[in-house]
């Protein structure tokens, strides 16, 4: 029976409006969110147009208009807590984090290179489950990306209960607590100061 009757579609366009999650869709972006997105986008715009004249008012005004469009359309999606970005302490910890991450990546690089070049190839790969105390999505994303950026470990999945599944080149323990201390511990305390 190859012929199939079309599903009942006669009112799916009109029905579509009812499907919308009203709570999320009708949420108006607050003015602080708009201002934050406007400022960041304007800064990036000035980086785009760097090769133009040092003070070119036409470019700056056009950039302001474009940032305003971008802010009013996307402020509801782009940011959640813009007030946090005003705290200068967070930027200090973020700068610290960049250097710390560079150091850890270098150490992990040397470790993986040692394992690859060793004649016995002492690896013990597998996937471990680790736990994180971080709450916000931004912090979890930064944590997962930092783990992936470090050679030897790679985030595979992120569950809703705050568990990460990490592929690790040399498993020292399959216990959740033990693995958490080894993989997550060094990133977590800095990320909490930056994002939460």
């Amino acid at each position, binding site marked *: 029976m190859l012929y199939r009757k079309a*599903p009942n*579609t006669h009112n*799916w366009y009109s029905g*579509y409006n009812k*499907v*919308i*999650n009203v709570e*999320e*869709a*009708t*949420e108006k972006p607050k003015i602080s969110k708009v201002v934050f*997105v406007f400022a*960041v*986008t304007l800064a*990036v*715009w000035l980086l*785009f*147009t760097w090769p*133009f*004249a040092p003070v*070119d008012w*036409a*470019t700056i005004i*056009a950039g302001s208009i*474009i*940032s305003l*469009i*971008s*802010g009013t*359309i*996307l402020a*509801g*999606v*782009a*940011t959640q807590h813009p007030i946090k970005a005003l705290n200068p302490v967070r930027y200090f910890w973020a700068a610290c984090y960049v250097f710390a991450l560079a150091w850890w990546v270098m150490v992990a690089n040397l470790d993986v290179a040692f394992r690859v070049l060793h004649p016995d190839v002492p690896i013990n790969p597998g996937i471990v489950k680790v736990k994180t105390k971080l709450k916000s*999505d*931004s912090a*979890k*994303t930064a944590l*997962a*990306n930092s783990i992936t950026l470090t050679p030897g470990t790679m*985030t595979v*999945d*992120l569950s809703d209960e705050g568990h990460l599944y990490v592929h690790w080149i040399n498993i020292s323990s399959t216990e959740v607590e033990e693995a958490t201390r080894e993989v997550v511990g060094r990133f977590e305390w800095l990320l909490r100061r930056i994002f939460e």
Partner: protein
Amino acid sequence: MSGMSPIVKTVTRWVSPFILAFGIYIALTGHLTPGGGFPGGVIIAGCFVLLTLAYGKEKVDGVFSLKSASVTDSLASLSFLCMGLLGYVFGRGFLNNFIQSGFPGKAFELLSGGNMPIINVAIGFKVGGSLFVVFAYLALFRAIEEE
């Protein structure tokens, strides 16, 4: 379509305003640097397509609904036509570059090119709006099919 994992959602959230601004930048400075209305418009559409893929269409509908995409498309086409018709008003002819021949800007700057930047941005919004509409309809059709 409930969306993807929180990592994809968060990264999409962070980069989406820059993609939109970059699309308009590509369209606006098309007369000075490589680019123009067509690639800029496709980048604008790509921003909302990315949001649709990451978040599902319900969330995007509160940001940039199908109706506002159609309105953007039509308004951009109309403004392109109006720029053409204004040529008659200035006594030159349809789609004449009347701004450039009337008050030429300094070369290699944003305000040079007469009405080229305006038409470029109009084409950008037109292409972006219409491509997003067609993608949203495809996604909608698929969601209905899956029910």
